[in-house]
């Protein structure tokens, strides 16, 4: 793992799980597989805290364990999985577009809790949905279960590896750690549960109790007593499936950009048909006959068979091969002219200096300047083609070329760095204005409580004036900046996704 990735993982773990978990997690990412005592010793944290941190990490599928010889259990961190935490909003939003609010909440709960049993998910989601519904209405468990089943059928959620059923005749001491078994067949099998019930609305008295000290809070006695019917069967989100969805979306939009709406619809249909039949990282979908495609086209598109065939031939002939990333730098650091040169070199594969100037229609001096800038940043590389065996420089062609794979890797590295910078800047901004933020929160709380008890307008205004106008301005600016930084994080993550998919798919080609 590169230093940039480790740094980013550290920031993400710290934001989401606190410093102790961050320390343990980063240590494991850096050093690889380690047993419990070594972790405690090397990080200088107490054994108790290390255990708790590891439990949290394992629960969220960020750390796996393995039993080695002599009964030593070693723990290993999954750096790439940690980086996926950047993408949580995108997963949840996708679930919302596909399965509406219910699906969105199911995916959100699974992501927040790592793994859960189906009954627990259904119950929690039903409660949450009931909160948002009008008074008197409740969400039925059956509806939530249905959405869950649909998510499982389309492979967006999957079962976690199971603990094998222990046999009573097993002699000797139990193993130090269970070996989890992945059952391929049952991975999407939903257990037959008859979940009957409705979501409960949290009583307002409970909400007030939230402010009281811990001792007075009523304990959760009721829920734990009932036996859970699907005990031991845990579910998790299937991130690969989401990635497949994103990839399909990217392909469809790329085709739409390049050609027109209809062709993108055709491609979308092809992809949808091969959703479950093709593995998520296969280089090509299963071959589909044009008849099948014709039958599966959505109802609104009545194009004739010949037109469909024409479109298909067009798509097949397109030199861009839309299963790959086409190295768009889009302006950015070097400007759109550089982008033109870059695209040109990319398309023509190899170009001489003079040819670059001619094709791009950019004056020689500028073209040179840009080429060298890109060269120094390793976007473009030089390829030597000697005319004579002694490689004399005066008699050698120097061609500019783009090595996409290395350019992609380099861009990816820069992306990780930029997201880390964005997160740090956001944390810095928040810390700078901490006092002001706390003050505004307190004022809001006061206003809310006063409104609840029915205060009059002048009183509320008085409280609001506690925050002066320049302070308000400051808060506005802060909010705007933080929003911008957050939005940038999300969009850089989209780029990361594209680059990573590209690198992964390119590496697999024989």
């Amino acid at each position, binding site marked *: 793992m590169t230093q940039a990735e480790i740094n980013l993982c550290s920031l993400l773990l710290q934001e989401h799980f606190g*410093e102790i978990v961050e320390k343990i997690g980063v240590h494991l990412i850096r050093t690889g597989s380690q047993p419990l005592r070594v972790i405690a010793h090397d990080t200088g944290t107490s054994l108790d805290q290390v255990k708790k941190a590891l*439990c949290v990490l394992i629960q969220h599928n960020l750390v796996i364990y393995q039993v080695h010889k002599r009964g030593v259990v070693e723990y290993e961190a999954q750096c790439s999985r940690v980086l996926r935490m950047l993408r949580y909003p995108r997963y949840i*939003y996708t679930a919302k577009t596909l399965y509406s609010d219910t699906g969105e909440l199911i995916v959100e709960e699974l992501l927040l809790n790592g793994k859960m049993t189906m009954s627990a998910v259904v119950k929690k989601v039903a409660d949450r949905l009931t909160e948002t519904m009008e008074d008197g209405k409740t969400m039925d468990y059956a509806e939530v279960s249905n959405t869950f089943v649909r998510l499982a059928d389309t492979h967006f959620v999957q079962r976690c590896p199971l603990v094998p059923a222990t046999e009573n005749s097993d002699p000797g001491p139990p193993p130090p750690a*269970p070996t989890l078994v992945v059952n391929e067949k049952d991975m999407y099998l939903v257990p037959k549960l008859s979940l009957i019930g409705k979501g409960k609305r949290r009583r307002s008295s409970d909400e007030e109790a939230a402010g009281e000290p*811990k001792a007075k809070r009523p304990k959760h006695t009721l829920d734990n007593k009932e036996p859970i019917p699907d005990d031991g069967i845990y579910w998790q989100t299937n991130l690969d499936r989401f990635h497949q969805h994103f990839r399909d979306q990217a392909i469809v939009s790329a085709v739409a950009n390049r050609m027109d709406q209809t062709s993108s619809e055709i491609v979308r249909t092809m992809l949808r048909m091969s959703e479950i039949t093709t593995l998520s990282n296969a280089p090509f979908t299963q071959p589909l006959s044009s008849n099948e495609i014709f039958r599966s086209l959505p109802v609104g598109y009545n194009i004739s068979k010949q037109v469909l065939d024409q479109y298909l031939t067009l798509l097949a002939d397109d030199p861009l091969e839309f299963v790959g990333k086409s190295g768009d730098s889009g*302006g950015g650091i070097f400007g*759109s002219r550089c982008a033109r040169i870059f695209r040109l070199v990319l398309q023509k594969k190899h170009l001489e*200096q003079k040819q670059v100037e001619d094709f791009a229609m950019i004056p*020689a001096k500028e073209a040179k300047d840009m080429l060298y800038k890109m060269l120094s940043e390793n976007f473009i590389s030089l390829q030597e083609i000697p005319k004579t065996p002694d490689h004399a*420089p005066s008699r050698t062609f120097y061609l500019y070329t783009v090595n996409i794979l290395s350019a992609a890797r380099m861009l990816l590295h820069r992306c990780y760095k930029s997201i880390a910078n964005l997160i740090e800047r956001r944390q810095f901004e928040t810390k700078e204005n901490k006092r002001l933020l706390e003050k505004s929160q307190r004022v809001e709380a006061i206003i809310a409580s006063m409104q609840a008890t029915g205060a009059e307008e002048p009183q509320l205004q008085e409280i609001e004036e506690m925050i002066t106008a320049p302070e308000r301005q400051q808060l506005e600016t802060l909010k705007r900046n933080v929003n911008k930084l957050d939005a940038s994080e999300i969009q850089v993550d989209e780029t990361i996704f594209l680059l990573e998919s590209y690198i992964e798919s390119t590496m697999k080609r024989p």
Partner: protein
Amino acid sequence: MAGNKGRGRAAYTFNIEAVGFTRGEKLPDVVLKPPPLFPDTDYKPVPLKTGEGEDYMLALKQELRETMKRMPFFMETPEEKQDIERYSKRYMKVYKEEWVPDWRRLPREMMPRKKCKKDPKSKKAKDTGKVTSLTNTADVLKKIEELEKRGDSEKSDEENEEKEGSKEKSKEGDDDDDDAAEQEEYDEEEQEEENDYINSYFEDGDDFGAESDDNMDEATY
């Protein structure tokens, strides 16, 4: 070599025109220091995408961040002692649900090992000891008050005795401090218990002497 233009003259080994510089042109300076940390960019970055989806994802992200902080998975670092104990902090503690992992899925060494309590009796006694130490000081103060009053009826003394007797029983196995306090009280109790007479009878020598002086020893000079 044929290409050598003569000794001493600067000659490039390759065709300089291919690279693009004409002869005699000023070459750019050699850069001797690392590039600046925040270089000025001539071009502005591509603007962020805006739209309903992006807005929703932004709101989600910020919400998720807040929610994660409240989950039981977020392990708080124990804060250093603040200079002043703020009263409001007691009431602003965020309530977190307890999370117990499924121990069947985890290696056995993950289970926290409970330290075996040495002696449940002594622990209980310590607790009550702490409670009674407060009441002990309260008792001592009470005692002092009573001793000052001196002339209370025996009934109230007996009541006090009963109270102290019960507390004495619960004080078994206490710390030295408590023991010392106990001892004091015990002595006093013993004294009180054994004597049926009022304590003040033989104590105030001055008054007694003065009284007797007044009454009997008039002649002593």
